[in-house]
């Protein structure tokens, strides 16, 4: 007889929490760069979806999961390029553009799945299996929880460290954050606002795309319509909850991973809880946590404002 206590003390729950937090975290990490440079990118969801689709396509065509990663990143960067061109070069409405790209990504992926694969369903493709750390993987509890994860988990952790260092400790990061606070002042100091914002947008596309790639090649090993399931929007909340910090994005994303993992475990246990209501839990949690934290947040001053050099 399983009960709640058994669920919350099992190492597999924590392993699942990390796994489920990963795509949200990666997308949030990318968005942190974009927003720090002053760009609001609502198109995260579309980037994740295109990343996932490209990964499955690449992995299926070449038979290599690594090629899948490359194609997935390419697809997500394509979305980032459109968002970047409209937001940075044309000075178009960033939010509307992101919304359009989300709808477009949903349509394009659904279209391509039916155009490419027989029967209109994506096949099972080669993906990544878990990476076992020598010795550490056999440690009690922590072994299962942390040291038997997908290689993506460790890559993501490295990315978080690098991002924190780059954004907070280098001149490049300072200039990028400057673009998000006062682009006009930056421009007058000779800082290339356009170029820095393009870099931020492409980093954002790459990270969100990697999140989608992991969903596809680390989790499901196939593609299904709308498989990003609102994670791009949860990531938007995570950025705010983490106060635009790459490192704080880790615990913030983990929180949502934990909620989702808990919901899934309860669902598969013999506790008599309707599974559908458990599936709603991560979305309820997003609103609740967001509501608790948001009062103390302080976004970049120029966030989302159109800036075109006159």
């Amino acid at each position, binding site marked *: 007889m399983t009960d709640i206590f058994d669920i919350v003390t099992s190492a597999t729950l924590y392993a699942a929490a990390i796994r489920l937090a990963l795509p949200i975290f990666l997308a949030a990490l990318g968005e942190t760069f974009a927003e720090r440079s002053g760009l609001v990118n609502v198109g995260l969801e579309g980037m994740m979806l295109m990343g996932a689709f490209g990964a499955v396509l690449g992995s299926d065509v070449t038979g290599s999961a690594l090629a899948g990663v490359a194609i997935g990143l390419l697809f997500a960067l394509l979305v980032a390029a459109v968002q970047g061109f409209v937001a940075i070069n044309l*000075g178009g409405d960033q939010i509307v553009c992101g919304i359009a790209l989300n709808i477009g990504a949903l349509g394009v992926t659904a279209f391509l799945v039916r155009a490419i694969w027989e029967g209109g369903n994506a096949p099972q493709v080669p993906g990544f299996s878990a990476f076992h750390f020598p010795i550490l993987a056999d440690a009690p509890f922590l072994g299962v929880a942390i040291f038997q994860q997908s290689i993506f988990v460790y890559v993501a952790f490295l990315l978080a460290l690098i991002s924190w260092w780059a954004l907070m400790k280098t001149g490049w990061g300072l200039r990028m954050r400057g673009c998000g606070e006062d682009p006009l002042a930056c421009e007058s100091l000779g800082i290339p606002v356009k170029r820095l914002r393009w870099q931020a947008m492409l980093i954002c596309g790459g990270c969100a795309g990697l999140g989608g790639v992991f969903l596809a090649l680390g989790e499901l090993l196939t593609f299904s319509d709308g498989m990003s399931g609102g994670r791009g929007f949860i990531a938007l909340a995570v950025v705010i909850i983490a106060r635009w910090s790459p490192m704080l994005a880790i615990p913030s994303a983990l929180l949502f991973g934990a909620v989702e993992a808990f919901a899934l475990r309860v669902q598969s246990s013999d506790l008599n809880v309707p599974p559908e209501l458990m599936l709603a839990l991560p979305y309820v949690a997003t609103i609740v946590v967001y509501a608790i934290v948001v009062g103390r947040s302080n976004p970049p001053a120029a966030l989302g404002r159109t800036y075109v050099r006159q």
Partner: protein
Amino acid sequence: MNAASFIPALTRGAVALVGTLIVGLIAVLAAGLDPVTTLQAIIDGAVGTPYAIRQSLTEAVPVTLTALGVAVAFRAGLFNLGGEGQIYIGALGAVGTALLFPELPSVLLIPFALAVGTFGGLVWGAIAGVLRAKLRLSEIITTIMLNFIAFWIVSYLVHGPLKDPGGSGYPLTREITTSAQLPVFGDLVPSGAVLMLVAAFCVWLLLERTSTGIRIKGSGSSASASRFAGVSMSRVTILVMAVAGALAGLGGAVSLQGDQHQLGDFFSPGWGFDAVAVALIGRGTATGTFITGVAVGALRSGIQSAQGTAEVPSSIAQILLAAAVLFVIVGNAEGAGQMVRRSWSRTRGLASD
């Protein structure tokens, strides 16, 4: 700065339309279809017969109603991405009412069920409005979360307590009685289409002929000026999100009572998101949104019936909508206007500014 003055409106509209058609042509060719027969099949399926027209109108109603709500919010500077959830809650309210009071006469039951559905959507929209007004939560995030929450609540109900015990095992509610179903006038015009027209007129009145409309548009174009003029921003925010939710809820109720007659997991094929695109293409005006909404309904319905003859994927509609929105943003963008002006002056041999 008035970005709209950079490129004449008519040119922008024409460019957006041509651009969207080119994207559609590419998609049709990529699907391995013949463009001419495909277009013919879609047009036939949309308006070719009286039945097709009726289907197109039926399909247009929920999208257009929801889009009108998105437009009202958009004019206040808010994005209602929650149409999908509001539609589900609206349909839930309608089906619940219809199943609880089947013995009521039609004259009472039809408006009663519509009203409960509308109210459900109103509440669902107002939640996001209150969260935005009182706690400063971005409605972009909360409306999406509320979509999923509404969907899973409905999914729970149709798999469990509301599931038709005599049904074929599919997660669907019982069918509502004929006393709750909306009539079709002359076998051609669904009564939902009349409601849609009335709603569009009311939204036009609200935005263009009332002081509330001035406050809504003012808070969208300049929040600080509106606040200075004594407009309560939080009241406007809650009001427009409630109106948006109510219209989407009505859309869900109308589709339930006028078309589907029962509620299930796949009640809405994505009307809530189509509606966002429709409102943006319609530039947030009642007329523009209404015309775009009816056109999108016809397109969706045309593609649906063409699927039988020419295997046209329904995702083409989404691609077209996304492309159209992108073209509209680009047309309105300040930077795009600058680029056009610069190349203009260059071709005329003048120095660029």
